[in-house]
């Protein structure tokens, strides 16, 4: 029947201030949980986007032999017929937007005084810019010129520039083992300095024209990297990438196609432990809200003792008295939770649309896995809304039960005498 709900609802609104305070605590709690979790999701996304935009790409194809010997970055396990393979990849996975080759090798960089071993990458300046964000992350100088430009130009990472005190226009001496297993060394001019944080797969980049001159004409392509339009949600992105890798893998059985998830494995494993943090937040705040609800319902019970007596005198059962007050708690819980969903949802919508510039947030701070020029977009996580609402209602229900039982246990005669 509606009468219990009616009485409960009207009492909740009759004591608006009491209700509001408790509901606001719940709103803030659940809202915080939703925003926090969405930002966590956004950070995961940002970190994984960093991998996709700089190193892992949406889909990476290499030879199995190369993958098996990856840490050695060998130049003798190249992909046969890179152009044909790239075309086959596009055919197998239509989601692929662009494919570009890269060849990684180990070298030694020096400024004549200090030297350090570094990872280098030979890239196709035009194609690379279509697949990766490296070309657009040049903080000073410029990206590698397309074919026909001046020879021996390199782009180096900001870290290498700092280590060796190099500036744009400066000279770096690079030595490395060629495809003929001989050592070669040459001077290169720093054309640009790239800012990609830890996401940069190599510390130094040069074009295939320069790479072939330096390492040998038969320089193999060690990997083909593909890009695809960015999916708004991480889960979708991972799933699409996995599907693409599967299609390419079966079209090119002699090669190894790896999706994003393969490279983000360690990171994704960490994600679960961070999730526990957001549960802690919601738990603590709901605990506070639960105390508020216990208090509110107790106040409600004690301000209506005689009303309880009247209802009991007229034959209402103890069970119904309990229901009456539990429903009051549930109504407050529902108001608080729904307000929390709105608050959280509003914030997430804003952070999802506008995003937060990390550089403006953490000025000059080393952000590790996050590219300093990154923009943090909160992720929509529909499950959070369900969890938030469920948590709120269950907490309210649990909290309201004990004061409601107290109301139900009152003797009608005592309740009626109460002044």
């Amino acid at each position, binding site marked *: 029947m509606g009468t219990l709900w009616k009485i409960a609802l009207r009492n909740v609104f009759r004591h608006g201030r009491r209700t509001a305070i408790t509901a606001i605590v719940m709103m803030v709690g659940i809202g915080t949980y939703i925003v926090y979790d969405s930002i966590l999701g956004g950070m995961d996304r940002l970190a994984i986007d960093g991998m996709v935009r700089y190193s892992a790409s949406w889909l990476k194809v290499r030879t199995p032999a190369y993958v098996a010997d990856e840490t050695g970055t060998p130049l003798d396990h190249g992909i046969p017929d890179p152009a044909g393979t790239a075309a086959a990849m596009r055919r197998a996975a239509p989601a692929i937007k662009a494919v570009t080759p890269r060849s990684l090798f180990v070298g030694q960089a020096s400024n004549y005084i200090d030297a350090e071993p570094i990872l280098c990458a030979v890239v196709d300046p035009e194609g690379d810019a279509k697949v990766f964000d490296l070309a657009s992350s040049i903080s000073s100088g410029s990206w590698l010129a397309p074919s026909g430009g001046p020879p021996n130009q390199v782009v180096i990472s900001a870290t290498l520039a700092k280590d060796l005190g190099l500036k744009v226009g400066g000279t770096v001496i690079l030595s490395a083992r060629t495809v003929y297993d001989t050592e070669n060394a040459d001077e290169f001019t720093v054309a640009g300095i790239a800012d990609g944080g830890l996401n940069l797969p190599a510390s130094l980049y040069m074009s295939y024209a320069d790479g072939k001159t330096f390492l040998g004409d038969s320089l193999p392509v060690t990997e083909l990297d593909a890009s695809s339009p960015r999916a708004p949600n991480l889960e979708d992105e991972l799933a699409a990438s996995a599907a693409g890798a599967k299609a390419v893998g079966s079209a090119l059985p002699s090669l190894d196609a790896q999706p994003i998830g393969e490279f983000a494995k360690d990171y994704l494993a960490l994600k679960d432990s961070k999730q526990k943090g957001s549960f802690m937040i919601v738990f603590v705040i709901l605990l506070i809200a639960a105390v508020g609800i216990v208090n509110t319902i107790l106040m409600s019970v004690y301000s209506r003792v005689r009303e309880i007596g009247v209802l009991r005198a007229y*034959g209402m059962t103890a069970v119904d008295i309990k229901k009456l007050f539990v429903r009051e708690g549930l109504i407050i819980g529902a108001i608080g939770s729904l307000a929390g969903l709105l608050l959280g949802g509003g914030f997430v919508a804003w952070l999802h649309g506008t995003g937060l510039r990390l550089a403006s947030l953490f000025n000059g701070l080393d952000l590790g896995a996050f590219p300093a020029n990154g923009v943090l977009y909160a992720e929509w996580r529909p499950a959070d809304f369900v969890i938030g609402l469920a948590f709120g209602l269950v907490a309210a229900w649990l909290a309201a039960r004990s004061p409601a039982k107290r109301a139900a246990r009152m003797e009608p005669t005592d309740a009626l005498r109460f002044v």
Partner: protein
Amino acid sequence: MAMLELSKVARVYRKGDNEVRALDGVDLFIEAGEFLAIVGPSGSGKTTMLNILGCLDSPSSGTIVYDGTDLHGLDEKALSAYRRDRISFVFQSYNLIPVLTVRENVELPLVIEARARGRSSKDGAPFATKTRSDAEIKALALEMLEAVGLGGKADRFPRELSGGQEQRVAIARALVKKPLVVLADEPTANLDSRTAGEILDLMRDINEKKGATFIFSTHDHMVMERARRIVTLHDGQIASDTTSRIATADSAPGGISDTTSHGRS
């Protein structure tokens, strides 16, 4: 057979070593349609008596037979069901539900009844009447409000009414389910004497026209004088039991002039 028979009813409150005999061997017969006042000094046991008559409390010893039903040994649940179906209350401080409108307050006993009936037929079965629809409940409530002269206030909230009006609503609420008996513990104590008189007149009027049984307690002489029968308690025992032969309320001051003493079983 009397509608209500109390025999050797006692109610003892224990507090540590102290023992208070709030009722001490009360024998009483009450017929349907009576208009009975229970009077006596403070602490004489009036409230205790009404609580026991209302099945809100059980006697420590003695028996109560209501309309042929011995209430002895009924558990709280059964007493609650009996109360729901047969007994109504009017309280000193009106005790309307503040968040319900006047009409909703009057509907409440019927709603509680309908709810119990709807839930299961087993627990309320011995006293079951037919289930009423929402529309019937509403019509009955409005009819009752008309009877207490408040038909125009149906959609007001209790706080918008005067004390006398609130008590009229409480009377309508008590009568709407056509109870066996209406119990009222000092129903006029919070009202000025003129309003108290009006409330008593209303109760008496309903008693005469509809045959509803009223049992009320009071301290007030003017109120006592309008009763047809007065049971006086003293230290938990019946000190006197008198019936006025003059039935009209307006003969007030001399209303108890001609009385006979009731037999005590």
